[in-house]
């Protein structure tokens, strides 16, 4: 992580000189979910860019150690305020959105298996936040951090590029994933506010964000049935290193002339699922995996879907053809729009990102 003290002068000048940004260094920036994995990197990125008036909105139970460390070493004349609350409370939302110029909305119901819970914490919370910001009239950009999960990826041949022009899941309720349903509806809600109330918004859809120890993305495989089933095979995995992702999200809130746009965030030189798994086993943890060819995984998803329907949900429809198309179909990814319109480049190359990631995964920190 860069030291803001060493970067302030040059980056503040960069910010002040560039007429491509919509904010001044003293404009108020709100980051929801600021204590999270990506949120804390966004906060650092904003500081590195010389922004001096940042509000972090966090849950009362959040771990604030990273934010507090950043407050400790913040540059002089920089204000970082932590506001605790719940986005389901309109009062808390008003307190959070007061006089802000840009909102980076990361807080979401991630990890929720229940549709209503995911929906409540994503869609209802977003509605509350936008409504609150509309009362102050100071909002210049609402950045919604969404996900690749919103794409349908059906009706196109294997191996074709998935970019921002690809269709969104038309029936997210049939995907069997609460997260997908909530994210699609959340995007639609923001777009409606853009259309009906003139909210200037940008959608950012990161691929698989990596950088700290955690579960292997389901795009590589799953361990739900005992042995790890390797489903990705030769598919490219749409990885984005957390610092690169944070950089793209921050730019989406600052750059002029991109209102209403959506941006996919993936890094360059993406590894295949097989390459990633090999690297992971070599450097992080050894375990047995069983490769499931694409034809077989598609057939299993089809059978699961049919059984779920036939048995009236005795097994929930968590595996189905829609999900297969999104997560395990051979697909390529593009970050051309991100580079062209935001001037983004992945500052941490994938090789370096993977090295750092594997270090976090292995207790002794060795990297082979």
């Amino acid at each position: 992580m860069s030291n803001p003290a060493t970067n302030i002068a040059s980056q503040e000048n960069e910010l002040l000189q560039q007429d491509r940004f919509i904010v001044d260094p003293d404009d108020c920036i709100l980051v929801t979910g600021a204590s999270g994995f990506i949120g804390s990197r966004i906060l650092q990125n904003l500081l590195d860019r010389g922004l001096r008036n940042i509000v972090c909105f966090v849950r009362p139970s959040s771990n604030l150690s990273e934010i507090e460390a950043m407050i400790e070493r913040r540059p002089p004349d920089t204000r970082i305020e932590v506001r605790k609350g719940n986005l389901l409370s309109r009062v808390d939302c008003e307190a959070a959105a007061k006089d802000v110029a840009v909102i980076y909305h990361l807080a979401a119901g991630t990890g929720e298996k229940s549709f209503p819970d995911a929906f409540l914490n994503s869609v209802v919370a977003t509605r509350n936040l936008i409504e609150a910001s509309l009362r102050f009239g100071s909002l210049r950009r609402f950045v919604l951090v969404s996900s690749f999960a919103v794409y349908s990826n059906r009706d196109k041949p294997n191996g074709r590029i998935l970019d921002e022009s690809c269709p969104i899941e038309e029936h997210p309720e049939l995907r069997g994933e609460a997260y997908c349903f909530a994210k699609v509806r959340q995007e639609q809600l923001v777009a409606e506010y853009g259309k009906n109330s003139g909210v200037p918004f940008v959608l950012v859809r990161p691929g698989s964000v990596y950088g700290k120890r955690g579960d292997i993305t389901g795009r590589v495989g799953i361990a739900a049935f005992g042995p790890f089933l390797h489903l990705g095979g030769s598919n490219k995995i749409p990885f984005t290193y957390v610092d690169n992702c944070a950089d793209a999200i921050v730019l989406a809130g600052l750059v002029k002339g991109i209102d209403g746009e959506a941006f996919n965030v993936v890094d360059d030189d993406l590894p295949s699922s097989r390459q990633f798994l090999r690297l992971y086993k070599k450097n992080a943890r050894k375990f047995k995996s069983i490769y499931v060819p694409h034809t077989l995984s598609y057939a299993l998803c089809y059978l699961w879907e049919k059984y779920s329907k036939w048995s009236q949900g005795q097994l929930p429809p968590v595996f189905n053809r829609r999900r297969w198309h999104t997560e395990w179909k051979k697909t390529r990814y593009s970050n051309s729009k991100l580079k062209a319109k935001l001037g983004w480049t992945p500052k941490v190359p994938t090789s370096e990102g993977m090295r750092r990631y594997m270090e976090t995964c292995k207790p002794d920190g060795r990297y082979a």
Partner: protein
Amino acid sequence: MDDMLKVAIVGCGKIADSHALQIQRIEGCEIVAVCDREPLMAKQLYERFPIKQYFTDLAELLDTARPDVVHITTPAESHFDVAKFCLERGCHVYVEKPFTLYAEQAERLVDLAKRKRVKLTVGHNDQFSHVARRMRALVQSGYLGGAPVHIESYYTYDLGDPKYARALLGDQNHWVRRLPGKLLQNVISHGIARIAEFMTTDSPQVIAHSFVSSLLKQIDEREIVDELRVIIRDDQGTTAYFTFSSQMKPPMHLLRLYGPKNGLILDQDHEILLRLRGQKFKSYADMFIPQALFAKQHLGNLFTNVRLFLGRDFHMDSGMKYLIESFYCSIRDDSPVPIPYREILLTARIMDAIFEQVAANRSQDFSSAALGQLRAD
């Protein structure tokens, strides 16, 4: 009433999904409307299930959709008002657990249902799982040899589950904190209802001991009581222990019934029912034969569960489906409700007695702590 039973769901949160899923599996009924004060929540449920309309106003729902049955799946603090409103409008009502905040409210709802000649039930669906029904049949056949001498009901709750614990512990305004019995009130009614089913008196003796677990104390949580031990005794001499714990491992939802002749163990988590033979075998035979008999019973449970699964009748919420189906049958046939009102009221009274003592325990704890602080000063 038409042949098709018209059903409405009020409150479109997490548990409403389970209701909608089970209702759509039952023949002869349809969900005509759902309602939530938050329009987005009402709409999301309406979009995901074959539901005809959604509302944000209950009166409008009742006037427009004219349901025969209303399922109340709102937070517990509103159960009484919503149920009363629906009963007064002549609807049959299924209230999610906990039935009401206080026993007095439960009594008023039961009285109202009787006066209006409509049916009322509570979502104690664990009592209608396959294994619970098998156990009930055995008890009714006289397997215990009479009324239970002693009952043990265990109900654990994993606060380590981030989904619930994060929402509850992180939010000082969470609705569960506003319940008189807080977390306990939202969770223990399944375990208490299992005891109430076998108690004969209307006002049993209840002795409760409660405390905050060391885990919650470590994170400075003082309000949520998550450990509870209760002794209950009715006037016929049947006694019961109820244990609620957030820390006990393995997690269990267990009922043990000991009769004058034989006993039974119901393990809800694994859908296991074991018969405990009252008579001993002679000499060394008692060291070998019971093990073989237990093994046989476990195999029998395994085969039963596999058979049910293959027969598409082993859903996670199978107890809820059975309870709803039985409730609808009682409406159609004007037959007795699946959970007798006596049991609903007894469960509510036992819970009242528990929460009264939990509150007293907490006051004592605070007084002791304050006294300790004064002495230290």
